[in-house]
């Protein structure tokens, strides 16, 4: 009986083994490359459902240099909701509407946009090819608990999952690409009431 249990346990453990393969050396092609360049600014029609507050408006994304980007969200009528800046590893809050201006909400939002824009210092550790598809999945050592799905032929990012803490687990999907820029982006949190939906309306 004990032997049977032991064999069952070994079979169970073996069956749970990750299908990811460690890649020792490779090109950096699986480091997620941001879809914005210094010369591109993007305007998305955006809906944010944040902790019981609903906001609809325009999200303007403007890179200012190779390592900084400005993110401004305003209502359709022009009133500004927030104005964030990502500069290297620093986040700068230029303005935030009182209803959203709480450290937890602001930090979550700005970090979501940092991850969404793939402004992360990623280091690859493991990859796997999803069977019968052109999608490969990469697990990163840094940032921790991050999985990115790339689609061939140009290895564009189509999904990114990131878990930063016990309560923060976010899934970002990118779709309807035009010249490598996603027309649709969805950000959905698993444990907190926060979702963001972006639809591209203008590229400059």
């Amino acid at each position, binding site marked *: 009986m004990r032997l049977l249990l032991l064999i069952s346990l070994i079979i169970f453990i073996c069956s749970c083994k990750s299908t990811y393969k460690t890649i020792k050396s490779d090109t950096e092609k699986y480091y997620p490359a941001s879809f914005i360049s210094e010369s591109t*600014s993007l*305007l998305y*029609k955006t809906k944010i459902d944040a902790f019981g507050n609903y906001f*609809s408006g*325009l999200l*303007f994304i*403007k890179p200012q240099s190779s390592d900084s980007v*400005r993110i*401004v969200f*305003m*209502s*359709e*009528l*022009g*009133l*500004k909701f927030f*104005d964030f800046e990502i500069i290297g590893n620093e986040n700068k809050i*230029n*303005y935030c*509407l*009182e209803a959203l201006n709480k450290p937890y909400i602001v930090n979550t939002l700005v970090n979501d946009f940092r991850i969404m824009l793939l402004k992360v210092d990623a280091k690859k550790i493991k990859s796997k090819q999803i069977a019968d598809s052109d999608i490969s999945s990469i697990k990163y050592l840094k940032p921790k608990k991050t999985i990115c799905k790339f689609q061939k032929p140009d290895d564009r990012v189509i999904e990114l999952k990131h878990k930063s803490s016990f309560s923060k687990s976010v899934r970002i999907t990118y779709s309807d690409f035009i010249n490598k820029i996603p027309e649709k982006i969805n950000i959905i949190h698993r444990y907190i009431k926060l979702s963001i939906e972006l639809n591209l*309306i*203008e590229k*400059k």
Partner: protein
Amino acid sequence: MFKYIFLCFFRFSQFILIAQDADLKILSDTVAFKNKLSQITQKTQTIESDFVQEKHLSMLTDVITSEGVFKFKKENKIRWEYQKPFKYLVLINNNKISIKDENKTNTFDAKSNKAFEMMNTIIGNCLKGTILNSQADFKLNYFENTEFYVVKMIPKKKEVLSVLSEISLFFDKSDMTVSKIKMQESTDDFTLIVFKNKKQNVNISDEAFIIN
């Protein structure tokens, strides 16, 4: 090098904006202006106009522009229809606000949303000619240049002041209609709405203020 070019351009843009205000002089005869506005607006039953909305962000050369059609019908019916680069419809019918965004419609009481209530009150009062009776909520300063009478409104309420530091209304001297509204935020950012191709007292059906 690019940084200096950008800074020069930014300063030049600021200079142009300051210059636009620089030709304004204080309006001495405010009574005559109020009477003229009152006379004209009493005769105005409807206004239909195209509009261009520009969002100017400080330290960015980009201007975010949207366009659409504006309609007003006495006493308190307003239609803002954004057509480019996105579709968005706002209807104000007395104290009810309806928004159509893509295929979703949302109707709520104007007083439940302070930003909309303020916009509703300001625009409605401009068109009805009663904007100059807003001393309880705004400090009003009067200016003019060759083209416009300009009323600069500084909010008195803290919750409004935290969002907007000043609202400037530009009344066209030729027909006393509002040609521009500039909403200055507490930061250096501002929104400018310019009304074009204005038509007064054209027939506008009540159905234009109901969402289908």
